[in-house]
């Protein structure tokens, strides 16, 4: 893509100049704006010998980046600005402005606008990457000292907030149990719904379901938590438990499973279905034996991404599982804990050792989710659906 652009841009003035006279030169300023036509007209008179428009050297962007970073740091140091954010902002502004100015002088207005857009795009990319990199870096750097075998295999029972030690075993156990329970509820419903939408659903009902699945992906997790609270705990009178949390998590998980499964089922070529049906195989067996196995890789990926998504949910857990410092291996009775909830609780204590535990648990949580993600992507790559291409 980028190569074609460069080629064309480089060639445009040359082809324009190989033409006989003014008409061709006008073709070289395709913006069609009178201003450009005039400009190229005047430059033609001034520099008849050169065929190429003047271009900035290839090292110019790099030089501009370095220069503007220098300016940013310099103003930061001289002006006594304490936050690196300000340094960065100044550098970014200087970079964008300088690029525009320099290009306007050397290459002309249109190229300058082009470079302005490019520099804005690059800047926005950097602006977005920095906080995310910082987030990962902070979590890893502050989390690693706290993670140990002891940390992974002990609970917080009897550990006071300001004391060192303690661990996340109870939280890990809770997270795993709640996520598994949620997926036991959500996966069958999600899969069947997707099958309905792709294989059976026609007409208004299918459209309604599709719309509400989409809307359901946007339900705030805390609202799902409140719903289960009002139904399961307040109306039906059950207590706080891991299962109540799992119910809320399953509500959050269902639409994700439906969405990804639906996409995957749509990729299964119709010929496969037709071949199976033509052999006299009933439709339900066709779906179970032909359609689903063909798409199983993608479906697994979607399910694991959904798992990764709900494993990090905190809000419904606060409302429904309540949190506990002790190991409770029965998700159907009594308060449990979970990793995200553990991070939140430790953060709320606000002591140094609690912060350390919070970072360490956050690192474990991120690692857990990233592993789920990577495994999911791996499966996706390994078992990519065999489409008709």
């Amino acid at each position, binding site marked *: 893509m*980028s190569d074609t652009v460069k080629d064309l841009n480089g060639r445009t003035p040359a082809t324009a100049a190989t033409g006989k006279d003014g008409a061709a030169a006008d073709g070289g300023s395709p913006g069609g704006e009178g201003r450009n036509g005039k400009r190229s007209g005047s430059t033609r008179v001034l520099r008849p010998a050169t065929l190429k428009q003047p271009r900035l050297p290839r090292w110019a962007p790099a030089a501009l980046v370095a220069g503007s970073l220098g300016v940013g740091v310099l103003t930061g140091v001289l002006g006594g600005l304490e936050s690196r954010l300000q340094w960065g902002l100044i550098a970014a502004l200087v970079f964008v402005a300088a690029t525009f100015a320099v290009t306007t002088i050397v290459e002309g207005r249109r190229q300058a606008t082009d470079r302005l*857009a490019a520099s804005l795009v690059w800047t926005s990319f950097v602006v977005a990457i920095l906080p995310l990199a910082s987030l990962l870096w902070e979590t890893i750097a502050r989390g690693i000292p706290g993670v140990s075998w002891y940390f992974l295999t002990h609970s917080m029972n009897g550990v006071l907030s300001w004391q060192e030690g303690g661990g996340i075993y109870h939280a890990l156990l809770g997270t795993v149990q709640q996520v598994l329970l949620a997926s036991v509820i959500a996966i069958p419903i*999600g899969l069947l719904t997707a099958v309905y939408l792709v294989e059976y659903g026609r007409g208004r009902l299918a459209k309604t379901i599709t*719309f509400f699945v989409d809307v359901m992906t946007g*339900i705030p997790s805390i609202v799902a938590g409140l719903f289960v609270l009002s139904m399961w705990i307040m109306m039906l009178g059950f207590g706080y438990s891991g299962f109540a949390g799992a119910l809320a998590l399953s509500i959050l998980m269902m639409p994700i499973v439906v969405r990804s499964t639906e996409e995957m089922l749509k990729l299964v070529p119709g010929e496969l279905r037709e071949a199976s049906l033509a052999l006299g195989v*009933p439709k*339900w067996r066709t779906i179970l034996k032909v359609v689903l196995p063909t798409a199983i890789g993608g479906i697994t990926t979607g399910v694991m991404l959904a798992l990764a998504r709900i494993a990090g949910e905190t809000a419904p857990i606060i409302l429904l599982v309540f949190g506990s410092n002790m190991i409770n291996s029965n998700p159907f009775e009594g308060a449990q804990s979970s990793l995200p909830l553990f*991070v939140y609780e430790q953060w709320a204590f606000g002591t140094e050792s609690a912060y350390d535990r919070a970072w360490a648990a956050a690192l474990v949580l991120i690692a857990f989710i990233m592993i789920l993600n990577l495994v999911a992507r791996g499966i996706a790559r390994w078992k990519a659906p065999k489409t008709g291409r």
Partner: protein
Amino acid sequence: MPAIQTDSSPPGGGLEPEPRRTSAVRPGDRIFSGLSKGAGITLLVIMAAIAVFLSIRAAVAIEANDGNFLTTFEWDANASPPYFGIAVLLFGTVVSSVIAMVLAVPVAVGIALFISHYAPRRVAGILGYVVDLLAAVPSIIYGLWGALFLVPQMTGLYSWLDQFLGWTGVFAYDNTPARSLMTVGILLAIMILPIITSVTREIFKQTPKAHEEAALALGATRWEVIRMTVLPFGRSGVISASMLGLGRALGETMAVATVLSPAFLINISLLESGGGTFAQNIASQFKEAGSMGRDALIASGLVLFLLTLLVNGAARLIIARRKEFTS
């Protein structure tokens, strides 16, 4: 059941090569299609149940409320005539989400363009992957990072803003820790970047190649190509992506609960602490709430639910209409 069968089999018969004259439906087929239809209906029932159950509890709370649910500036739901209102929460939720959207959308469009049109192909592939991974980072970790790393970083920037724009009142700053709606908005912006980026990128990728090549053939620069073909094509996609992001930001709980230092007042200055959002208020008040307090929180949750329903529904409608239009 028979009505359902007549509903679904004729179009199915039209699409599949199944001969129509074997009209006797196999029991296996009937069970399976019934099951899958049932699952779909379950989803609808859950959505309806959410609305119904929240409304029931909310009605109890609003009935007992001594203040005005919409305009009261206090949250005293555990008092014996409960006295609470959502004015502050509504303000905080909307303001922080709008800040997040205003900050995130241009950057997200920039990244999406970077991935689809500027980055070298291999880098673009990796970047798309990274963006998807980042969408998976749990909100509590953003919250932890925001509270312990971002907040101290913001102080300098805010006193700067105060120095130059403090006269507006909106950017006045008193050098307290920056646990304000603005910081929340910035954090939310970082959090909703991945979703806006990935939706926008998909839309930009669908720009007809012929349009772009036509623009290039006319000698357009890369920016002109984008302005003339990619942006007009992707406009509705960008709008719906930002609304999806807005929906996320509205309902975000943990990042707000950790960063914001809440207070039931509307502070004109966005840089100073105070205010609150629906989700944050529910998460932080829940443990102290009695039964009436919970009902009141559920009432505020219902408002949040309706708000996100509205935003997400609108976004999806725009996407759906666009799909019909293009395909």
